[in-house]
């Protein structure tokens, strides 16, 4: 990622992505087709059903887009921390905390509250919750010498348990571990009643992503993060305040994850209430997205969108008697295949350079 010759590199980046993504996709699709054949399902029908299920109607296309937004927010946040060399695996807990903090406001909202008051407050609290949880992981690293991966995993568990405690205790409504549905003013507005599309949600996610994109491409701070990610010791010696930047990038990532958490409880495609396991692996999905694009910002929105197609599309496969978990297999196999293809590509280019 050479910023000096930007246009040139965007082009080679595209080629590189095509070279790795193409064969990887092919391999995974063939493998899935074989699986389908093995269980006596017609792969072609399955693919057609899948595409129709994901993109067949306006309603479905809008669902795909709305599902992609929290993934995009998480991936954007992770772009920052990964660039700085921080493996923020605790993002799952940060999403949950965002959802919890947003719910803290949302469940107080009545039919008469103004949306103009409720929604900004929910979003602000969600960002605060995510940022605090991320800062905790960051402080554990900088002050307690706890690797952010281990700290993050532990904090994910704790966040999950705080969520369960709230849903089985103070916030429980009815017999199930969940809150009561939020009142309409607490929810993000739909563009039209029939579609799940919400312009504010779209704006939030787009702003988040563009901010990160701009930080990494154009700012001095973004350059500092890149230097840290490659060699924190040298960056420190060259004058970068590495500890402060770690805290800052984690907090920013937490804010974006918190926003994703808020979308999970108040966007039109959400259930409009807080339920257990609210994040459902969304943060990890963000990790996969960022790994898939090799921490190159440009491609994140497309891959996020692509990943959102999968769960919606596989829902339709149930009609054919195929379990939707096939979608997860597809996602994970794809990431693995792309990482492998990346490895092969570097190996190939290395040997071709040498011989």
């Amino acid at each position, binding site marked *: 990622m050479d*910023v*000096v010759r930007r246009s040139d590199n965007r082009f080679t980046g595209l080629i590189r992505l095509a070279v790795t993504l193409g064969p990887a996709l092919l391999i995974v699709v063939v493998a899935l087709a074989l699986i389908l054949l093995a269980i006596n399902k017609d792969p072609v029908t399955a693919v057609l059903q899948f595409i129709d299920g994901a993109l067949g109607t306006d309603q479905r296309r809008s669902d795909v887009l709305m599902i992609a937004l929290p993934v995009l927010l998480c991936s954007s946040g992770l772009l920052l921390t990964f660039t700085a060399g921080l493996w923020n695996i605790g993002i799952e807990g940060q999403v949950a905390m965002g959802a919890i903090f947003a719910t803290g406001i949302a469940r107080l909202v009545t039919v008469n509250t103004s949306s103009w008051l409720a929604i900004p407050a929910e979003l602000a609290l969600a960002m605060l919750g995510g940022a605090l949880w991320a800062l905790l992981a960051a402080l554990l690293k900088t002050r307690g010498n706890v690797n952010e991966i281990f700290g993050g995993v532990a904090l994910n568990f704790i966040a999950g348990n705080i969520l369960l405690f709230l849903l089985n205790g103070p916030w429980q409504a009815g017999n199930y571990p969940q809150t009561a549905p939020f009142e309409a003013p607490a929810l993000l507005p739909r563009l039209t009643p029939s579609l799940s599309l919400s312009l504010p949600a779209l704006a939030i996610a787009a702003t988040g992503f563009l901010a990160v994109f701009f930080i990494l491409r154009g700012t*001095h701070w*973004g350059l500092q993060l890149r230097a840290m990610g490659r060699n924190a010791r040298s960056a*420190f010696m*060259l004058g970068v305040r590495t500890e402060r930047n770690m805290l800052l990038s984690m907090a920013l990532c937490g804010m974006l994850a918190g926003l994703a958490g808020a979308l999970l409880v108040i966007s039109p495609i959400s259930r409009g209430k807080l339920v257990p396991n609210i994040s459902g692996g969304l943060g990890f999905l963000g990790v996969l997205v960022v790994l898939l694009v090799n921490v190159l910002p440009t491609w994140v929105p497309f891959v996020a969108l692509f990943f959102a197609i999968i769960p919606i599309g596989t829902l339709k496969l149930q009609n054919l008697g195929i379990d939707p978990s096939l979608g997860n297999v597809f996602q994970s196999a794809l990431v693995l295949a792309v990482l492998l293809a990346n490895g092969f590509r570097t190996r190939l280019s290395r040997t071709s350079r040498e011989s």
Partner: protein
Amino acid sequence: MRVELDQITKIFGKLRANNAISMTLEGGRIYAILGENGAGKSTLMKILSGYQPPDSGRILLDGTPVSFSTPADALNFGIGMLHQDPLDVPSLTVLENFMLGEPGGLLPRRKAARETLIAFAERFGFTLRPDAYVDGLTIGERQQLEIVRLLSRGAQVLILDEPTTGISADQKAALFGSLQRLAHTGGLTVILVSHKLEDVEVLCDEVVVLRQGQVVGQVMMPYPTDQLVTLMFGKALDRTPRQPFERQAQTKVLHVKALTVPDSRVALVDISLEVEAGEVIGMAGLDGSGQNAFLRACAGLQFGTAGEIRLADTDVTRWNYHDRAQLGVAYAPAGRLEEGLVTGLTLTEHVALTSPAGRRVNWKTATQETKARIAHYSIRGQPDSQIETLSGGNQQRTLLSLLPSTLKLLLLENPTRGLDVESARWVWQQLLERRATGTAILFTSPDLDEIVEYSDRIIVFFGGKARMLNDPSQTSLTELGQMIGGK
């Protein structure tokens, strides 16, 4: 073993790093491959030791053409290379490192390996404690470990890349002694890659001089030094006399009072020092005698347990590195790619990173600024070259170009590490220019010549104690060498 290199050529882009190099190296002799930075020494030795294949040309061992694809492969043929920075695993013990890469079964044979290690170490007069952790060893000890490891694996050809960088005089003597024994009685082919003429003159039987990827001479030692220099550089180098330091009107830059710094080996105890603007102070001492700890303590990278550090009139004892930098203190580490420059970033990115610019980076001005610095510091590289593609000398030039233009105090850890005579001279020319503008310079170096030549005062470190020599011209190299050894 006889090593023949036949028309070895290696091209990187437009650069002919090795251009049809041929030579024959016989067993039982010590050879030097001499050349300035970028002459093609390292490339050639990487080819010989299996790190990279040549583009064309053959390697013959005892008359048989061979080719190998990995260093392990080369070692199986009996060629072992000792790198400038030892390639070991610092978090493992000496014994564990020794056993790494050993062929053999599922369960390591610790006991046998320990006996082999001790036997080999004793044979060469090395003191290696099998259970010591490698990260606590000096560079010299780590080299000994690597030599023992290579020999135990059956190396018949031993390549040493700048082995005397960063080791003490005693360790150097021990190393040279064992190399001579290995070659002259053991029959090994020893190849020393170096640009240090004094090492070459003391140790080697024969010298091959490379310049710009070609062999420009193969001569028997002893051979006149000035002619070797002429071969190396294609011209004779002259010695420019140093401007004597004139004590100015008492502008104190640094004042260290009774500083005590803990260190992994020897703690520095009760050191005091006053440095004036424009003064150059050389710090001599064996590896790990406390000079680096002192330098880092002045930079704010390490903190003392007692004492006081003042910069001009400010007490900075508890200030960290970045805060002291605001007062005009800079520190240049010896490990350029480890803790100085960022691998993967371009020159422009380095310049932008260190420029106290606004929030946004203006890549256009950054590129222009980089071009200006490339010209001023004669760096061989482009604004968009990634830093690791530059040679060691050019990396050092880059590191110096990144230092703020006005400084009160410049702290340098071995500023000419791995540089040839000309690059080293150039570095000092830059440093003396800074000194002329009132920058005080504190530097460490394992090279006593360098210390005597450039210092206004010398501090000798031994076992955590410091001894001040106020007039270096009154001290001979021999005396200095003895003081370093604690005499």
